[in-house]
């Protein structure tokens, strides 16, 4: 019983509203990731679930029970912090066992559980060291171990990998995925890194200015972003945006972009729009819609390359192509895409969809 229900949850710091009427349900055993730019309220929301911040308004339920007034220790959670927050004066072994010691478990049982977790996280050889004698990655493993050892049903992570370098981040990402696969605990994970969100999450919650911008599986967010904000936040390199004009017609719509006009299924919208194109959806010298462009720069990445190009009067595009294209700066090319891959956003920055026939 570790599902989470947030109903109209609000957090205010004085006059400042940091979380504004958030509604969210996290299913039992689900891995949910909060993403969003720095300062959007991810940590605050997580800390409200943990009980480290009071809930100004609305209701939090865990396992179907109201938890607003319940102290953190009684919410059945374990949490991992970005700063690790290891007890600096205790050995790794004691760091892992401290909560159990407090819960008055027998010494034998503590030792057994600590060594089981240590084996699981491959930190057995570190048990007698102090946190200061560990590398960042090792400290992070200990912090995760300390959360695991209490066998709670709900895990909260606040940017656990932000202090690690790229290699370690990848390694720990895989590790966290493995932990979730094996323990199946409900997990809420905060990050500002969309790659972590995409690779770890069952569902992603995109936050913007204290509100939920969109909730969905990684593929849903990638394929059908509800707004320009979500579209540009999910996916790397970032989505390209070109200005265009949409004209409603009988039975169809006509879209004009960079001087090229084509027809689409009818969309109930008329006026200026923004056309979102992912770098990996752009086709060099092909596609249903094609526009002229000039090469600015080619960045080879090994198996693939990023082509930076200029279209129209100063618009920039990034395109991902396989292999190493033989292109010189200033070469004239055509950039194209399939009509189904274009994301259209109206003046309010919300996604436009074809009207149901």
């Amino acid at each position: 019983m570790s599902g989470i229900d947030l109903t109209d949850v609000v957090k205010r710091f004085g006059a400042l509203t940091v979380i504004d009427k958030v509604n969210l349900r996290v299913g039992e055993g689900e891995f949910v990731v909060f993403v969003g730019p720095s300062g959007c309220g991810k940590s605050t929301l997580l800390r409200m679930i943990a009980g480290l911040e009071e809930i100004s308004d609305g209701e939090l339920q865990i396992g179907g029970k109201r938890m607003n007034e319940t102290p953190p220790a009684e919410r059945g959670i374990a949490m991992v912090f970005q700063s690790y927050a290891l007890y600096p004066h205790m050995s790794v072994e004691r760091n892992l066992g401290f909560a159990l010691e407090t819960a008055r478990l027998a010494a034998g049982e503590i030792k057994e559980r600590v060594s089981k977790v240590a084996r699981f996280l491959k930190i057995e050889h570190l048990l007698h060291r102090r946190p200061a004698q560990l590398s960042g990655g090792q400290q992070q493993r200990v912090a995760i171990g300390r959360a695991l050892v209490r066998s709670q049903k709900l895990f909260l992570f606040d940017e656990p990998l932000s202090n690690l370098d790229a290699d370690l981040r990848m390694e720990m990402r895989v590790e966290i995925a493995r932990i979730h696969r094996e323990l199946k605990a409900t997990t809420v994970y905060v990050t500002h890194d969309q790659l972590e969100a995409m690779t770890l999450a069952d569902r992603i919650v995109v936050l913007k200015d204290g509100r939920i911008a969109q909730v969905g599986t990684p593929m849903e967010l990638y394929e059908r972003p509800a707004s320009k904000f979500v579209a540009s936040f999910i996916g790397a390199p970032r989505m390209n945006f070109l200005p265009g004009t949409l004209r409603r017609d009988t039975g169809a719509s006509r879209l004009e972009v960079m001087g090229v006009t084509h027809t689409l299924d009818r969309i109930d919208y008329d006026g200026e729009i923004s056309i979102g194109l992912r770098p990996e959806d752009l086709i060099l010298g092909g596609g249903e819609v094609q526009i002229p462009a000039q090469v600015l720069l080619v960045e080879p990445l090994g198996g693939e390359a990023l082509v930076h190009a200029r279209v129209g009067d100063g618009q920039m595009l990034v395109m991902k192509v396989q292999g190493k294209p033989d292109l010189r700066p200033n070469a004239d090319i055509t950039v194209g895409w399939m009509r189904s891959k274009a994301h259209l956003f109206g003046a309010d920055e919300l996604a436009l969809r074809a009207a149901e026939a």
Partner: protein
Amino acid sequence: MVSGVLMKSLGLRQARARTAWWFLAPSLLVLTAVALWPLGRTFVFSFTDALLTEPDFYSYIGFDNYRALFEDPLWWQSVRNTLYFTVISVSIETVLGLTIALLLNSHIAGRGAMRAIILIPWSIPVVVSARMWQWMLHDQFGIVNHVLKMAGFIDSGIAWTANASLVMPVIIAVDVWITTPFMVLLILAGLQMLPRGIYEVAAIDGVPAWKQFTSLTLPLLAPSIAVAVLFRLLDALRMFDLSFVLSSNSDDTKTVSIYAREVLVNFQDMGVGSAASTAVFLMIAVVTAIYVTVFRLNRRLLGV
């Protein structure tokens, strides 16, 4: 190649050491002039029969001064007084200082103003504080007796600083009043350096407040407390002003520093006075050495 790098780094270290010495030189010079030189002179005089009136005429008399000193029961009483005063006052100040620092560190209303106010007793010169308390404790006109009388606890004024069994507690109380703020300040600084996150982890892990205090706060704060206590120890062991002002002639509160001054100034005996001063210095050195050793050992045992 490797040895070249090594040589270079050695050269660099030497250059750094040389720079460090240059920076230290002025303070070493001053220290020698105002501390080491007088200390050495005192040490030399302690083996002579010099008199304060004619310090230039003396002869060496070996350990006679020390023999005289150690045969004087008043010296030993001064030692007992000093140690008693030190242990009791520093203990009270530590516990009180820690308590107040914890209060000021918690999120209580008005703690900013409290922090400023608490420093006032410490910022007043000790002699002024002592005089102030002397008046407040005066047996006829003092406010302390006045309040006690009004409240009906006593019928006639108590001679706080003249009563043999009261005077030491009174001096300790005034010292606590004066120096607890210093303790508070040092411990508060230590408290504010504690990592905040571990308390959130502890809250989530269900560690009760008292255990957070004994297992997290105290061990992490131990170095700060130890330094504060060391400062206070050194200060208390050579305490002079408070006793001198509040009860200058009482043997019950005579500290080793007062004893040394008395021999030197009242009896003009530079030899025994110097021997007493040297003994005070050695006493402080020994106590400090024991304290530092024990604390270091403790740290190793506790694994702090």
